[in-house]
């Protein structure tokens, strides 16, 4: 198992290098210019000088090598300096956003908390709703509950978040006036009142995303349970006189969890990636909103860095899912 993990980790290094190069070239070759949002009243020669000041006129490979150095040396060194007061980075240029001229990692640091709280909660809520629905739907296949569960999943699957989100805003914010439509990122939870406020402002985005997440996971859970319900070992367990509770929740559930855990684990990077539409709709201003804002403004350093971080997360969670298999199913060993 350890050898397997190490081998996979080593293999990840060249993979990530290739990914970083591909991302860099793709983003760079995509049409658009960091100057496209500037009003037409700014004359062309001033625009040219602004591009030069950003360093955006350098050849693509010069910028790639510089970015690699900044990503793998300057940024970790700056982080280390921040923790221990050393001076490894030596004041070298960090990765700067073209749009705001602020270090990209500072922006990410400001935005991760919102994304993790809101999107993470929505994911958790989604899982907590989906698992019981999936289990019970499979156990009572074609019952009324199963039909309702299917309806719920179909709605969650097919209604896009920009629609369900707007609907939720109109119902809960405009008509009922329960929740704010704009997320206040400066709210610090210090006491009961601010905690309630935090819950209120999280309610609508969590509802919107939770519905979509629960729909996906509940279908996986249901089908995986159905696959296992007809297996021989289930009949054996019943023949041994075990209670239905033990049969379903211990024997069937544990075996059914394997594919579901993969789906859940592979979905975790998307929590960090944020939710572009939902974040924009509710003003959560997390990573997803940062990404789409940077794409609109052709802020290449920001887009490149974010895309690469997502790549790192996806590669790592694939590995984690593989390792989890072994823990859930003793028959699976990679050595």
């Amino acid at each position, binding site marked *: 198992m350890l050898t397997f993990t190490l081998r996979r980790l080593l293999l990840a290094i060249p993979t990530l290098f290739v990914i970083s190069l591909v991302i860099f070239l793709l983003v760079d070759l995509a049409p658009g210019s960091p100057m496209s949002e500037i009003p037409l009243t700014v004359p062309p020669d001033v625009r040219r000088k602004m591009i030069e*000041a950003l360093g955006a006129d350098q050849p693509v490979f010069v910028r790639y090598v510089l970015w690699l150095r900044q990503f793998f040396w300057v940024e970790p060194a700056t982080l280390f300096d921040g923790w221990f007061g050393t001076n490894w980075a030596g004041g070298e240029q960090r990765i700067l956003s073209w749009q705001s001229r602020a270090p990209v990692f500072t922006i990410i640091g400001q935005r991760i908390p919102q994304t993790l709280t809101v999107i993470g909660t929505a994911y958790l809520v989604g899982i907590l709703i989906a698992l019981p629905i999936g289990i019970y739907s499979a156990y009572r296949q074609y019952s009324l509950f199963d039909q309702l569960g299917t309806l719920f999943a179909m709605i969650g699957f097919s209604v896009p978040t920009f629609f369900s989100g707007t609907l939720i805003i109109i119902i809960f914010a405009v008509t009922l006036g329960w929740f704010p439509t704009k997320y206040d990122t400066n709210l610090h939870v210090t006491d009961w009142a601010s905690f309630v406020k935090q819950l209120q402002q999280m309610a609508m985005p969590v509802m919107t995303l939770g519905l979509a997440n629960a729909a996906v996971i509940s279908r996986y859970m249901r089908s995986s349970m159905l696959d296992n319900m007809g297996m021989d070992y289930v009949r054996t367990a019943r023949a041994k006189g075990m209670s239905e509770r033990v049969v379903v929740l211990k024997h069937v559930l544990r075996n059914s969890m394997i594919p579901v855990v993969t789906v859940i684990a592979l979905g975790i990077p998307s929590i960090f990636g944020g939710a572009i539409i939902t974040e924009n709709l509710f003003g959560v201003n997390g990573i997803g909103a940062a990404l789409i804002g940077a794409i609109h403004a052709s802020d290449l350093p920001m887009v490149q860095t974010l895309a690469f971080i997502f790549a790192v997360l996806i590669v790592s969670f694939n590995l984690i899912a593989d390792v989890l298999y072994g823990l859930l199913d003793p028959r699976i060993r990679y050595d």
Partner: protein
Amino acid sequence: MKLKTALLGAACALSFAPAAFADRGTDGEVKFTFPQAVSIMNPFLSSGTKDVYAASLVLEPLAGFDADGVIIPKLVTEIPTLENGGISADLTSITWKLLPDLKWSDGSPVTADDAVFTAAYCMDPAGGCAQLSKFDGVAKVEAVDASTVKVTFTGPKPNPYTAFVGALSPILQKAQFAACQGAAAPTCTDPNNMPIGTGPFKVTGFTVNDTVTLAMNENYRDPAKPAFASAVIKGGGDAEGSARAVMETGEFDYAWNTQIPPDSQASMTAAGKGEFVVAFGTLVERIEMNMTDPDPALPEGERATAKHPHPILSDIKVRTALSKAIDRQILSDVGYGAGGKPTCNVVPAPDAWASDNTGCIAQDMEGAKKLLDEAGWVPGADGIREKDGKKLHILYQSTVNPIRQDFQALVKDWWTELGVDVELKAIDPSVFFGGDAGSPDTFQKFYADVEMYANNSDGTDPETYLSQYQCVNAPSPENQWQGENMNRYCDPAYDAKVKVLTTTVDVAERQKIAKELNDMVTKDSMTVIPLVHRGTLSAHSNTLGGVKINAWDSEMWNVADWFRVK
């Protein structure tokens, strides 16, 4: 005794409410929401309107413009003019006198050195200053004494109110930005995000592309202002969401740039929590005609250049017919509602500068058909007009934008009725406006017959804007497709008139020439067919008083006078 005085004072203050004379910091918090979030608080490094407006709460220029476009003093005792001697008789210099006892929000005095530094900061060739054109023709800026700033120009300057005037050209604090000049400018993250200013507010917190929190400036020059103790600008989302947060839920006091469809405007106003206000500046949605041939069969380097005149649009009768077939009132109503009005001018405002040209407003389909008949374009078997075996086919490009696609569809209907075969094309705005010489889809390259976008003149004086239509400004392979004369319009008489404008001092005479130039590119030659004069639609809550929408400066130009209606 003291308590009694205080109580009396409080009672007086209460009895005067909701008068605008409330004491400083008594009205709580004012909350803004911008559909695009603020990226940076230094207008010299970003010309994004969102950033410039947010910065205008903190940073101030020497002089600004009021809601009518009239120049007003901000940090100076009076506006320098020829009469008061502030502008030299030969028009080569302007001298500003700072207000006495003016302080930065950190308590240090504002001196002429700060203005001198600001000029050096922006004019530094390595700094990439976005407002460099404000310092066009500036030879030097010097401090005559601690409170006198003298700007000398390289030659006579009929309009010297550019440097240090308006929200685009504020004064920075030398002490804060001294280390940020030139190549270091973009790396000064803290000063760029939290500049020290003279405005009614100071920055207390800044999260990039999200929220700016501000507190009142205790050192603001008027001791009774601002009425609000703090302010917050929340960014992100879309125009619809921002408008809703003011007009329907009442969470925010002011939403900038809430350009939403006319039916949503009506339903949100009906909620009764706020109102929409429109600032009509100089922004005009227009169709530009390509005077050169964009035929893909032409070799690269000659395509869409002056070498090959346009085979169809070179005929003024065709251009006039295309303009006559359009119903501008319908376009304005469908696309912008209260935020637009039909226009025939490229310079639609201020009134004193705008030509009285309204001939294009009424649609004239029959007249248009007649013109095309006269030009030799007669309907063929399929209803499409043709001439010498060539079909009247027009490629009509614009950017991806729901309103522009509505406009394209409507105009296509009218032109099809006219017998024109119209092909539509929509390009991503970041490509269209990106100016990448390698892309075939930029508005400068104009590889289409007509294109639609919006453009405006910066400030009240349209000299720079009108000079864009000179021959020399035509984008071509020789200048890497840079330049603002997209049409490749070229008329020596126009160029000559622009020369006259640049040397004319008398304002009335300037206005007359500007109107003539406007007419030359619009009704006389039909090179540009203006469609809609667009305003900026913003929304404010009914509980926010003192708002005077302004198209010539920051919309928050008088935020110090805003107050809470009780």
